[in-house]
């Protein structure tokens, strides 16, 4: 619909990102030299560790899968200038509902049951976020605050179900029973946990990209995101585009939770999804809210995580040191993403 390649947006500023990455890694190396007694060893595992065997590599990619979904969820909302800060609760409750559906269904019907579980997870997230959008449309409640508050409350409700009615007494974890084998997603890269949901996440990124840049809804969403007054003047139903992006954003978050259960965890463990929602915001920021940029951004995020784990396992760094190094890199990269976002806004012709 627009001949200016949407992909071009993605690569604009890639040099800036590369420079920031260089600086970030240099600082990380410096930190490791001061904090570790076997710095070369630590550096090796931190940066190369995730690529040294199939198990690490596959698990790194697996970690990125829910982040692709939550990153897409945030990108959709931010592109439309609505704010969904309830990702945590939406992922977690999506996971619970997905698990509950699997546990409730009769043992037969693997594909259909799995699909039902994912649909349930998706719907849960959509409803939770959609509520905030609806309140905004109806009463002008700030969706940024309400989505956060609803999510914070929902987390406790999910905790209750996991540790109460759905708790598996035969297991020492604070977790539900495991879902049946027939619902579990197929592993594609043994011995790692990577499963077919990797393909789902790529499909989701492609779909969201197509939706945002090639369809009527995407056009209206982006126009509302850039200039609501113009959109209203042009005849777009602007109040619908407060609710719709929230629903879409929530659905993607709920799906992240469902996919994590069916693919990786196979049971809802108390607070297992902590961070997936917030990290989605970071991923979207790095990707500059571009749906296709979300995929490499999520992998990058997962790479930092996997590197820290490998360094902890194979070298003398503690969890705290690994976290410090990880956050230095992460802060610099997000700062760069934020900086260019701010500059774009300030530099926009008035």
């Amino acid at each position, binding site marked *: 619909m627009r001949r200016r390649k949407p992909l071009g947006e993605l690569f604009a500023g890639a040099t800036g990102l590369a420079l920031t990455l260089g600086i970030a890694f240099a600082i990380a190396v410096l930190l490791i030299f001061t904090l570790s007694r076997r710095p070369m060893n630590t550096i090796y595992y931190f940066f190369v560790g995730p690529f040294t065997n199939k198990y690490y590599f596959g698990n790194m990619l697996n970690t990125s899968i829910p982040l692709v979904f939550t990153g897409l969820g945030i990108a959709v909302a931010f592109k439309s200038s609505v704010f969904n800060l309830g990702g945590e609760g939406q992922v977690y409750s999506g996971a619970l509902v997905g698990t509950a559906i699997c546990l409730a269904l009769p043992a037969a019907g693997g594909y259909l049951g799995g699909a039902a579980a994912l649909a349930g997870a998706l719907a849960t997230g959509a409803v939770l976020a959609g509520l905030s959008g609806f309140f905004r449309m109806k009463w002008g409640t700030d969706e940024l605050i309400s989505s956060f508050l609803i999510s914070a409350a929902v987390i406790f409700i999910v905790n209750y179900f996991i540790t109460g009615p759905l708790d598996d007494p035969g297991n020492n974890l604070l977790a539900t029973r495991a879902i049946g084998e027939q619902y579990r997603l197929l592993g594609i890269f043994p011995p790692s946990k990577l499963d077919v949901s990797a393909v789902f996440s790529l499909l989701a990124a492609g779909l969201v990209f197509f939706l945002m840049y090639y*369809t009527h809804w995407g*056009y209206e969403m982006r*126009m509302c995101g850039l*200039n609501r007054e113009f959109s*209203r003047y*042009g005849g777009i139903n602007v109040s619908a585009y407060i609710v719709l992006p929230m629903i879409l954003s929530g659905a993607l978050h709920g799906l992240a939770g469902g996919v994590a259960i069916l693919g990786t965890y196979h049971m809802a463990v108390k607070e297992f999804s902590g961070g997936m929602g917030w990290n989605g915001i970071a991923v979207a920021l790095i990707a500059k809210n571009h749906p296709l940029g979300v995929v490499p951004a999520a992998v990058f995020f997962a790479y930092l995580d996997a590197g820290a784990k490998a360094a902890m396992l194979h070298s003398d760094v503690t969890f705290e040191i690994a976290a410090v190094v990880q956050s230095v890199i992460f802060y610099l990269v997000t700062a760069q993403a934020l900086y260019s976002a701010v500059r774009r806004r300030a530099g926009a012709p008035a």
Partner: protein
Amino acid sequence: MPYLDMQGITRLYPENGVLANDHVDFSVERNEIHAVVGENGAGKTTLMKILYGLERPDEGRILLDGREADLHSPLDAHRLGIGMVHQHFRLIPEFTIAENVVLGVEPRRRGVFFDREGAVSDVRAVIEEYGFTIDPGLRVSRLTVGQMQLVEIIKILYRRADLLILDEPTSVLTEQQIHKLFDTLRSLRDIGKTIIIITHKLGEVKAISQRVTVMRKGQVVAVRDTAAVDERELSRLMVGKSVSFAFEREPVPRGRAVLELQGVVLLQKGQDHPLLDHVDLSVHAGEIVGVAGVSGNGLAELEDVVTGLRRVSEGRILHDGRDITRLDARHLRRHGLAYVPADRLHRGSSLQSSVMENMIIAAHHDFLKGGVFRRQEVEDFARRLKEGFSIDGDPRVPIGTLSGGNIQKVILSRELASKTDFIIFSEPTWGLDVASSEFIYSRILEIRKEGNAVLLISSNLDEIMGLADTLVVMYRGRVVARLENGPGVSKELVGEYMLGLRDDFEGEPR
């Protein structure tokens, strides 16, 4: 020797090529109240911004008390004793009067802490010194507009200003508040202050000032002693002689009433007189109705109301006899609303989006197949508009990178492409160069010739007198004149209605 002497001030806005001040000489004596009058865009505000250090002149110099003043920022202006009250108040509603007054020059304790008691007592001292009665501890959000204005004045007095600039200070005030303000200004003059007051209202010029400077199109056209000039003459000086217009309006048979407003009232909280006061208006097929008025008299509100962006408080709006009063812009678009807004940078376009995306905003439903855009058709459409309106630039670039004239052409091309029988133009040529303006005028006349109804809202009298079949003049939210355009209608007459000097119009003349 005058107290303030601005010599040969010239300021060109390169963005749109407008020469806002063209070798302006302006002087004020010590201890006088000096009025500056002129139409919108005459250059009054630019001149005052230069004096206040908000803008730099391209040429010219400013002498204050005989010494050359170098004004780079409002801080320099404060240092030289120049203070300004802006048309829109710059107050923080949640703060008290004292906190607002000292903002930026707060009294401090031990260098870092805000001295709240000190602020209150300092501000109280200033209030008493000038004989005002207001409690500095009151929160600004609880004040009336008249009191807020007083706070703005106290703000500059607190900074020890000797020269006070007031930009249209009465536009938001009631009659009593205006009287009170004028009493304040007179007493300030009596104790030695010098005051410059920018205004559109000629009655106020007579009431308050000793001398008056009239500006038109970036130049000073007259400086008079107020006592020696009457309002008619000032009005004539302000609007100038009619310029001959390059276009001929061919006679077009007038058809049915396409757009009708019946007793439309628009109220707003906190305003004591309605923004629109029982406005009756009708636009027929093949007719251009020009609505003239000085800004702040209801033109912007009329624009919002007929385009469905603002709900009326009372009255009805009809399109082809059907009631469209409660429909918003989205539904009106389906009724064929075409509208070129005055605010073309925020309402009329999305600056970061491409020209193409801007072109399809109203018609994008026509390019869909199952919800997906048919690219080729969108591109063909964009190319057609680009060629038809000779728009410079690639349709794929963000519209914000185009010049003002080209942005307006994009908006115009888009609005004219819709299937419609009525179109609303608001300030269609504001800030545009002559060539772009003439292009737009010829298009407006073409639309009329095709038998469409045109509502033209503009504060540019030449434009309205040149294009409109029927002239409607608004003053303080009311229609004060409805005239058939013709040789009998002079610019002076319309100007007098616009400025509220004549109020002899009663109801429908037909």
